[in-house]
């Protein structure tokens, strides 16, 4: 009996098998929680700088992780089900960002852009599935090469249309400006606590990503469609033999994953910017997240995304010229000790 790959919470089994690692992980999490919530003693501030900087890096890292999760979850879902690496995933992200920018620019509706982009990029995903993946089923390498070719072509077409300048998608007014979080960033001499402020739009993105992640997990583990998808991951032939139209499931998952990447493009364009070259950055992020988290696992994608987001932001604050190395070291360590990824099988 194989356990299902896409969903499942393997914590209890993990705790039984590796008590030492569980304790170490719990201690690390506790230490981070303490660092975030407790006012820092003076010695610590002298050693690693002010708490406000640390908090900002942590929260930026988690929000970046949320964005990475949006991109990587579609990637990992497609990979888990169809065993094909869609190296044009970053291009779908960037195209989503550009289309979202045009839509927001024309109509001013930020939320509407999500719907439009999800539908358009989802359709593009369906076209890709029909033209490329269905025709080359079982030929992993060729599929991968074709998606590389598509990403080259798409990147150049986008450069042609939108040029090299960067675009910023404007967030709606109700999300503009800072919010105050119930977390103490420093204590004034008068003993009054200063609370951390953080852009509202980032909080919204974080909340939306978590909600989406939970929804995806529920859909995969508690619905009939999720059951079909999980069955397709485990044994495609048996699923087809029991009368399910597997190709339809594939098309659906591909469209959903592609649409998700497109929506992530709007999110990225709102709190960073849309510019040529981002496609490769987010393709790389998806690759690393999926390698670290484990191929085909939603939970792994979430874990990997937060890890990589945190590593990138903390690295750029505390070791500016070596932050990429930190990301890379995490990947290398995972590959060395757990080649199938943290949550992979």
């Amino acid at each position, binding site marked *: 009996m194989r356990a299902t790959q896409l969903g499942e919470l393997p914590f209890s089994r993990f705790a039984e098998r590796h008590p030492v690692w569980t304790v170490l992980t719990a201690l690390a999490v506790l230490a981070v929680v303490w660092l975030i919530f407790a006012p820092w003693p003076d010695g610590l501030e002298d050693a690693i700088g002010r708490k406000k900087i640390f908090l900002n890096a942590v929260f930026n890292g988690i929000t970046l992780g949320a964005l990475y999760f949006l991109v990587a979850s579609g990637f990992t879902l497609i990979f888990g089900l169809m065993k*094909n*690496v869609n*190296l044009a995933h970053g291009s779908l992200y960037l195209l989503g960002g550009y289309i979202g920018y045009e839509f927001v620019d024309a109509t001013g509706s930020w939320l509407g852009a999500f719907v439009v982009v999800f539908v358009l990029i989802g359709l593009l995903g369906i076209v890709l599935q029909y033209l490329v993946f269905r025709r080359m089923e079982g030929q*992993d*390498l*060729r599929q*991968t*090469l*074709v998606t*590389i*070719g*598509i990403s*080259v*072509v798409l*990147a*150049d*077409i986008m*450069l*042609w249309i939108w040029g090299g300048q960067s675009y910023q998608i404007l967030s709606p007014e109700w999300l503009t400006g800072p919010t105050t979080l119930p977390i103490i960033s420093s204590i004034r001499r008068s003993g009054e606590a200063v609370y951390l402020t953080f852009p509202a739009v980032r909080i919204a993105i974080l909340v939306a990503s978590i909600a989406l992640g939970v929804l995806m997990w529920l859909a995969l583990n508690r619905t009939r469609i999720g059951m079909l998808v999980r069955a397709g991951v485990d044994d495609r032939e048996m699923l087809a033999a029991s009368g399910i139209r597997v190709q339809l499931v594939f098309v659906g998952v591909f469209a959903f994953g592609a649409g998700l990447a497109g929506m992530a493009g709007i999110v990225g364009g709102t709190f960073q910017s849309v510019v040529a070259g981002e496609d*490769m950055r987010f393709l*790389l992020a998806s*690759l*690393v997240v*999926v*390698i670290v988290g484990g*191929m085909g696992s939603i939970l792994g994608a979430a874990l990997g995304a937060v890890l990589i987001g945190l590593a990138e932001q903390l690295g750029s604050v505390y070791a*500016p*010229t*070596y*932050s*990429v*190395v930190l*990301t*890379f070291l995490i*990947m*290398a360590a995972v*590959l*060395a000790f757990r*080649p199938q990824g943290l949550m992979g099988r």
Partner: protein
Amino acid sequence: MAVAEHPDQTRSDGAPAWLAAVPRWWWVVGVAMLVMPIVASDFVLFQIFGWSFILGMIALSLMFLAGYGGMVSLAQMSTAALAGYMVAVFGTSGVDAISMHWPWWLYVPTAILIAVLFATMIGALAVRTSGIYTIMITLAIAAAFFYFTRQNYGIFNGYSGFANVVPPDLFGLNWRRAMPFYYLSLGCAVLSYLAVVYVSRSPFGLALQGIRDNPRRMAALGYNVTAHRVAAYAFAAVIAAVAGILLVWQNAQISPGTAGLPAVIDILVIAIVGGLGRPIGPFIGALIYVVLQVFSPDILTALGLAGDRFKLLIGLGFLAVVYWSPDGVLGLWDQWRTRRDRAADPLTGDTP
């Protein structure tokens, strides 16, 4: 990606077996290459052929890994660029704060050695997985290398990289002039080609091809699968490193863009378009790529498009090759030959 190997036939008509085994048209190409400087302009020698040889060598290192080892590594450009960077760091460049001004006989081997160590580490990581995972991991490593060289100023001098990296004045020659550089790159390309052919027929190369086809059986026969794969990465790195050194000498500069993701993907495109089946494929692919790149403004303008859409042309060409002829241009050639050989005899209707 099957690689056909023809064992040397022994002949008894005086000439040594290995000499007689060389096909006739190879002599033609060889002589043409040697006398090329008489007819070709400096631009053709330096930009078109010099660059083709260099890109062909980097793609050859990929072809060796992919064709004989079944491992498509996208980190070959990074290995080459690292060797180029090391030449700039240990040798002489425009950045005096970093360059160490070693003599050439010291910095060239050091650069190659460091690049080989780097590739061996990549290999040790990448061989833990296989197939498309190798592509993903090496792509991630290549991207990490690019971002690292861009943000690191202590060793790689960040965004600007190194300028004024020139080859040493050996034998009183300026090796960046067209004709000497042409012969230098031709010599290196021929040597690496012969090295790949030789290694592919050596016991090591045969074991590698066995591992490509069936790793479990080879492991059962007592071959160390991991060690062979990692060694293949190390061997391919030597070729890539030499090419990287030539590249930095040709451009006289190196910067993060040298190993940026577009460059990394270009190497894959070259190897695939040429064909992963035989070691000559990457050089054919490189020549096509360079000619297209150099003349693309003219081609595109003739087609009524803007002159700077070179990437579109390359991308579409690559897609066409992968879609219709997975074995590249060499595959097309082979298909044509088989069809010609299989053609029915017009008189009897027999197929040979």
